[in-house]
Each structure stands twice: as structure tokens, then as C-alpha cells.
């Protein structure tokens, strides 16, 4: 075998790229005393070899399973091809990945991209990302429809948070062992798309047979998530199986509101026939793990002016906002700023705020209207978060009283006294989405919030995570609302139903469950 490049990724996979005329080379990797057989061997045609045979090769060896005594960075590594041994030098294991991207022939570069898209190789450092981006920037898009395949993209959308999904169909002319795969590219980030090829029933494509191979399940979908919200435009590279000479089909990613994406994904999910695949799609759009937010230092400073920032998920009729504000106003020790978790300010909402302000004895002003929380320029003394229905039905006196500066979680838990341990309380709090009000000093609130990833539809899901952490850490005062009759609000964007009947809160709860299952 002629070795061109070899390198090791972050997951401990060694990739050896080169070419050989042998159909089935006998490759092994000798790592000190250990001998590894390839995890996978992919073949590709290389035009520089002036042959239409797939002489190009990338072999993958998994070093992550070696026992703890073997350090791949220090080990002596040889590639064996039959009786022929070639040493793989450690410095090249670190550097060759970049060299391949820089000077490798197109076919091996594209083969590398496929391995990345299939998550067989993880090249996640920013430098290689930049170099791949640079090389791909001018790469032409393959045709969506050729004699050998038909590819369609019904939607390719991403939320501002960097979570995205693609839905479409793909029909090759002939069956292929290789699946359709894809990479999402934005700024300097390249992430693999979790592709569920041949996962969605598409009886409507029968008209393409016999030109293409029709199976009835030719719909695909895929999901991805950039670890940081992209600043620039994103593109998707859909890589056609068997096409070694082109990178793939470029698809622009449309940035849409997170709820639109969730709606689209929910609809697509219903079309996936295998239930396990449904979870895979959702999980691909979520972070692998949720952090446990921690208070930097216990906030015990006394309130200064008593100013309150009320972050309100108004889940009642627009006009009822006035009553909610009037309900809390007599209990405010100082001025009230309102941050309304709505996409826009309707005339009725504006009128409701104005009406409440007319009747208020303390200052009341609208700080902002957005589905996302924003930190005010002038930090208030404290922040209170609640849904309107909760705030209206809970006793506002204790919630707004200028008591301790410790975080306080007031929740409705009719059977909570039975489960008095913090673990049990926190578990019920999360599992049953118990209505709650969170009140805490503003500075630690925003510091904690920064620790929670922006991967949910609702801010409540982030704050529930935050409140749960405070409960578990014993960092919050826990009050139970003494209410015998409670009704949840059913108005506002967060209560809108997706095609599967779930609202935004339930969607978030499922997202959280998927993350926790994956990280368990």
C-alpha cells in the first residue's frame, strides 16, 4: 500500500489514506504490542492514478480501545500490509489531517469529508475547519438530478441557535452500500448531519420508477447542531453515494424561528416509520449533555432600590396582562420592568401594559418583548420569572416581598410533602413540569443563565433547569403555593400545538429527556 497521509482524530481513530492496486489488502496496525484490524476501509476512484478502479483507500483503526498502558502519542505504530511494515510517525499523526485537507487530491479529500459526515472521523478543531471551509468555498455543487440519482430537498432550515434539520428524498438509480450523508457548514464550523436515509414513507415518488430505484421509503431527514450559534449563512453539503469526483450537492440553509423549525421537525418525525429514528433526529439537534449551573457565590446582598425585572410568559389572553400586572403591583417594593416573552407586542398587549401603568402607584415600564431573555443594561435588584397564569393564581405577597436575597422557588406541588427530599422534589419538578415562580437577585440570575445552553424553544425550559439545580444544591428557598384549584394558561405562543399535539413546553421536556437519555 502506498501511504499518502495518516492522522489520528480526537476520538482515537487513526486514519491511513493512500492507494493500492490490491482489491482486498490485508491491513493491520501494530501499536507497541497490540495488533488492530481496520475498523473500516473505504475505497474511492482516484483520477491521478489514471484508472477507473477504486484504488484509493482510507483505512480506520480504533485506538480508543487499547488498554491504559498504551499511549498512542508515545507508542510505536506500524501499518502492516501483508508482510510489509511502514512506521507511522507521531508528529504526522498530529499534523497530516491538515495536510490532507490542504494538498490531498480531490477524491481523498471528498472521501475524508464522507467519513466525517458519517461520524467515523471527528476532525473538530477550528484550524482544520477553516481549511476545509477554504477548500470547499469554491467547490461546485453536484447536480441534484442525474442519470444515476435524483435528490430533492423539501426543507433545509436552521434556528438562530444553530440547530437545523433537512428533509427531502433521494433515489439512486442502483442500490448502493453507502448511505446518503451530509455536513453542515457555517462560519468556521463543520458538523456532521445525523442522516436518516430511507426513513420516511414517500409513496408519492412511485412515478420516478423505473428511472430510479423506488422503495416506498425514499424520504430522508437529518438533523444537526452547531455548538455555537453561527454568525453567517450556513450551507449543507449532501454527499451522493458513489460520486467520488464531486463534494456533493450544496444546499443553502434557511434561518427560521426556532418554533418553525420545531414544527417542521415534528411533522417530519411523524413521517418516520421507525420510532427509534424519530428520537435520533431530535437528539441530533441537541447538545450531548446539559450542564449543572452553579452559583458562583451565595447572593446575600440586600436589595437596594427594590427594582424588579419581571420576565413573564404571558399564557393568558392578551387583555388579561393588565390584570396580571395589577395583581402584583401592590406588592412591589420598587419599580417594575416587564420583559414579555412574546414574539411581538400586539395592540391589545400594549393597551394592557398602558392600562396597568395608568393604575400603578410605582413605576412600570416595558423593558422588552421577545421570546428570548435579554440582560438589561442597568441591572435591576432582582429578577422574577413566571407564567402569567401561575403568577395570577399564586399569592403574590410572599413572592414579591423584599425578603432574603437568596433565590426562591415557589411551586405548586399538591403532593410534594410526600416527597420531601431535594432529589425527589427536583425530579417531580422537572418530570411533571410543576408550575413555578423563580425569584432571585439579578446578577447571579444572569450569571447562572449563561451556563445553560440555548437549545430549547422556551426560556422556561432553561429556567426550570436552573431552578432544579438550585433546589438540588440547596441554594434556593423552596415555597409551596397553597392552592386547591389551579388552571394552566393555554394562550400565547408557548401553548401552540405542534402537529403531534404537544405544545412548546412538552417539546422542550422531550428535548431534555432525549439529552439525559443520551448522556446517561
Amino acid at each position, binding site marked *: 500500500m502506498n501511504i499518502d497521509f495518516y492522522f489520528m482524530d480526537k476520538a482515537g481513530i487513526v486514519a491511513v489514506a493512500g492507494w493500492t492496486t490490491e482489491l482486498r489488502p490485508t491491513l493491520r496496525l501494530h501499536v507497541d504490542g497490540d495488533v488492530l484490524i481496520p475498523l473500516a476501509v473505504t475505497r474511492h476512484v482516484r483520477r491521478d492514478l489514471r484508472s477507473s478502479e477504486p484504488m484509493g483507500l482510507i483505512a480506520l483503526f480504533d485506538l480508543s480501545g487499547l488498554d491504559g498502558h498504551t499511549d498512542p502519542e508515545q507508542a510505536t505504530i506500524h501499518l502492516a500490509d501483508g508482510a510489509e511494515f511502514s512506521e507511522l510517525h507521531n508528529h504526522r499523526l498530529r499534523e497530516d489531517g491538515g495536510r490532507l485537507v490542504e494538498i490531498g487530491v480531490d477524491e481523498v479529500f471528498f472521501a475524508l469529508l464522507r467519513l466525517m459526515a458519517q461520524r467515523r472521523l471527528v476532525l473538530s478543531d477550528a484550524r482544520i475547519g477553516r481549511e476545509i471551509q477554504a477548500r470547499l468555498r469554491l467547490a461546485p455543487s453536484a447536480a441534484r438530478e442525474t442519470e444515476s440519482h435524483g435528490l430533492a430537498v423539501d426543507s433545509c432550515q436552521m434556528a438562530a441557535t444553530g440547530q437545523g434539520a433537512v428533509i427531502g428524498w433521494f433515489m439512486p438509480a442502483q442500490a448502493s452500500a453507502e448511505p446518503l450523508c451530509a455536513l453542515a457548514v457555517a462560519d468556521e464550523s463543520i458538523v456532521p448531519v445525523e442522516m436518516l436515509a430511507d426513513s420516511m414513507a414517500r409513496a408519492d415518488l412511485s412515478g420516478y420508477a423505473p428511472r430510479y430505484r423506488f422503495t416506498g421509503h425514499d424520504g430522508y431527514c437529518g438533523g444537526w447542531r452547531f455548538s455555537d450559534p453561527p454568525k453567517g449563512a450556513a450551507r449543507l453539503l449532501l454527499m451522493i453515494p458513489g460520486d467520488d469526483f464531486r463534494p456533493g450537492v450544496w444546499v443553502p440553509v434557511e434561518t427560521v424561528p426556532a418554533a418553525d423549525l420545531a414544527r417542521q421537525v415534528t411533522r417530519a418525525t411523524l413521517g418516520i416509520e421507525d420510532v427509534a429514528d424519530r428520537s435520533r433526529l431530535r437528539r441530533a439537534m441537541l447538545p450531548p449533555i446539559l450542564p449543572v449551573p452553579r452559583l458562583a457565590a451565595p447572593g446575600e446582598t440586600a436589595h437596594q432600590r427594590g427594582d424588579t425585572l419581571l420576565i413573564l410568559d404571558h399564557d*393568558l*389572553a392578551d*387583555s*388579561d396582562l393588565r390584570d396580571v400586572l395589577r*395583581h402584583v403591583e401592590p406588592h412591589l417594593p420598587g419599580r417594575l420592568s416587564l420583559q414579555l416573552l412574546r414574539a411581538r407586542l400586539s395592540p391589545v398587549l400594549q393597551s394592557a401594559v398602558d*392600562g396597568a401603568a395608568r*393604575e400603578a402607584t410605582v413605576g412600570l415600564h416595558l423593558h422588552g418583548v421577545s421570546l428570548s431573555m435579554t440582560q438589561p443594561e442597568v441591572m435591576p435588584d432582582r429578577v422574577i420569572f413566571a407564567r402569567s397564569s401561575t403568577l*395570577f*393564581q399564586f399569592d403574590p405577597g410572599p413572592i414579591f416581598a423584599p425578603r432574603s436575597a437568596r433565590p426562591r422557588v415557589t411551586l405548586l406541588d399538591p403532593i410534594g410533602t410526600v416527597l420531601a427530599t431535594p432529589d425527589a422534589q427536583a425530579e417531580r419538578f422537572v418530570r411533571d413540569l410543576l408550575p413555578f415562580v423563580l425569584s432571585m437577585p439579578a446578577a447571579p440570575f444572569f450569571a447562572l443563565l449563561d451556563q445553560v445552553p440555548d437549545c430549547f424553544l422556551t426560556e422556561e425550559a432553561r429556567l426550570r433547569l436552573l431552578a432544579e439545580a438550585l433546589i438540588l444544591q440547596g441554594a434556593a428557598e423552596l415555597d409551596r403555593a397553597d392552592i386547591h384549584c389551579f388552571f394552566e*394558561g393555554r394562550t400565547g405562543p408557548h401553548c401552540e400545538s405542534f402537529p403531534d399535539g404537544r405544545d412548546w413546553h412538552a417539546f422542550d421536556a422531550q428535548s431534555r429527556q432525549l439529552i439525559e437519555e443520551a448522556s446517561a
Partner: protein
Amino acid sequence: MSRTVIVSHSHPNLRYGGGEVAAYRQFRYLLAQDEDVFFVGSTIGPEDSAKFFGSSQQVISFGPRDFCLRGRGMDAFTMEHPEIRDEDWIFEFLLALQGDVYHFHHFWNIGAGTIRRLRAARPNAKFICTLHELTAICANHGQMVKRSGELCYAASEVACAACVARPPIDFVLRKTRMIEMLALFDHLLSPSEFLRMRFEDWGIAPGRIAVIENGLDHHGSFPPETEAELLAKSGRFAFFGQATPTKGLDVLIRAAALIEASGASFDLPLSIEVYGVDKDGFTRLWPDLDVPACVQFRGRYRPEDCVGIMRTYGWIIIPSVWWENSPVVIQEARAAGTPMIASDIGGMAEKTAGWGLQFRVGDPAALAAAILSVHGRADVLAEHKARITKPINLRDFDAERSRMCEIQKKPFPSVQAETMKAC
């Protein structure tokens, strides 16, 4: 106390309903007594406003003390102005009148926010509210009749949500808002015990609501009728009301059809005459109902002629299929000395007790039986007539209201002459 501002959801110059008529009668009476009084009504909604108002006009004056505001249309569920500037205008207008007594008849078109702000701005004024129906309790037109048609006996968040198809939490908000608003009044008045009890069952503290009938001016006594006149009248029945489903005119027509179908022959002709509705109006509402020959539609009538017309009949029928409160038609029948056949529920049962006949609500057969039981019976008619007491007149109403609400009178003669002329 010197200045009274009477506020109504409508103005009887534009619409003629029980609440606004009672409010306006009170205004006219007080004005005639040289009191410093203003009347503030409103158009019902944008349609009426467009008919009578210029595009930027906010108020029409029917006299120096008689105003009609431009109603923008208020959602009776929220009982708040959808736009704060409309509330601002009404609030400032009412505040500018500097009332010592604000007597509200209804709060629709006025708005809970207006009342709250006026209360805050006039802490020493006396605030009175006459409850004319059940709007505060019931979001289904304040009638406590479910959309399925069955009578409603009590409001609850869940039952109301099922009836009106809104989330239960909306009713939590609504009730809180209504209770809070009613708590701002120094005195709550109800024209019927029935209404008082419904409000107390709902959450108003016992003793907060005083019962006083609406005043109705009427002529003293009528000359006694001869036996022949009584016999003739015992075959004459009449309905006074509007063509709305809850007034139960269909029940009456079905009862008349049952009587006709029975094939009974009468020595004394039996006639049922319908006032306030013409045949076209009836057919529009109940296109599948045939009108029996004994029923005649007399169409609209002038309210001031009502008592005189009623006097010519033996029995007035009130077959409403909702509770009613204190229908003016019952007071008018009492003023006419004409007994009634009434549905056996709510304000009708209460107000006709002792001098009327009652039948099972919504039951045409029961109504037919009641009609037949008194048809041709001069003795029964005379007996019921003898039990009728006259309704409270405006003088007595005002005296009672002043006593209940602890209002001290202070004449204000300077405006009376010009105002009376203008009115």
C-alpha cells in the same frame, strides 16, 4: 351630597332596554325634583356609533345634562375597553362631571378599568351599582343559560369553560376582575331577590346587595270591571316582548298549537296577541313553526302605551326560557292590574308569586294547560286581579334608594327648567 351622575351602558333614545330605561326614568325623576343630576349613556357598539356620530365625535348631548357617549364595542367577557385611549376618554369625561354620587346601571361599555380609575380618583364619592342581569357571573350573555340551551344553576371555571369554549383560567381572571370591580361600589342594588341570591352564591358577601325594584311611574287605580268585562278578558291573552330566543315566544306558539290541535270548542273565543314582534320577525327566528289561527301579531308598540294595552287583556304571558331578573313587563302588568302566566323560574317566579300562574319553564303543554285553566273563568281572573299590588313608583324608589345608600338630598333648582325643556 349634591351631584348625581347616572351612568348606563346604553341610552334609551337609541336603544330601548330594561336597564337603560330604568336608569333614564331615575334621571328624569331626579331632574324633576330639582336635583343636580347628569345622565351618561352610550351607544351599544360601532354600528350604532356610525349611524349617529361624526367620525371624530365622542359624545352627543341630548340636553345640557344628558349625554350619549360613542360606544366602541366592548367584549363582555373582559368588560374592558380594547384600547386604553377609549377608557381614558370615558374616565376623564366621568371625572370631569365631579359627581358626588355615581350610580351605574350596568358596566358594559363603561369598563371595569374605567370604574377602578374613577373610584381611585373620586375616593370620597358614593358609588352605587344596580345589577340588571347576570353578566358579571355569566359570560354567555349574562343569562345563565348554557349554550346547549339548558338552564345554568351556578358558575364554575370548568363548567363555564365547557359552555363558552375558553380555558378555565380565563374564568378565574374574569371572576377576580368582576368581584374586584363590584367591591369598589359602596352599594350594590338588585331589583330582585333572585339576582341577589345568585350573586351571593357566586361570591358577593351576604348583606352587600340590597334589593329594590326599579321604579315605574303609573296612574293610580282603574275603574272596577264588570263581570261581563272580566269574562270577555278571560279569553284574551297577550305577550309583550322581543323576538329573541330566550323570551320563549316559541313556547307560547307551540302551546297555542297544542290548544288548537286538541280540537276543544270554546263558548268564549280564545285569542293570543303578540306585541313587540311581527310575524316576519317571528318567522325569521322560527321558520319551521306554523302560527295557529288564535295567535295574532300586533308588532311594535310605544312603551308609554303598554300599560293601557295590557289593561285590555285578561292575562299577560311571560314564557321566557332564561331566568329573567325583574322584567319591566311584570311591573307594567302590575301597573295595569293584569295578572300573568309566567315561567316558574328566577325573577319571573319571584315577581309573579301570589298573583300569577306559573308553568314549567320551556314546556308548551304546561303553558297550554295553564291557559286553559283560566280561559273563560271570570272568577279566577277577578281573584288574581285582587291580589295584585302596584309596583313601586319613582318617588318611592328614590326615597328607598336614598335611605339604603345613605344619600342626603340637596336641591339644585337652577338647571331644572332648561333641562326639562331640552329633554
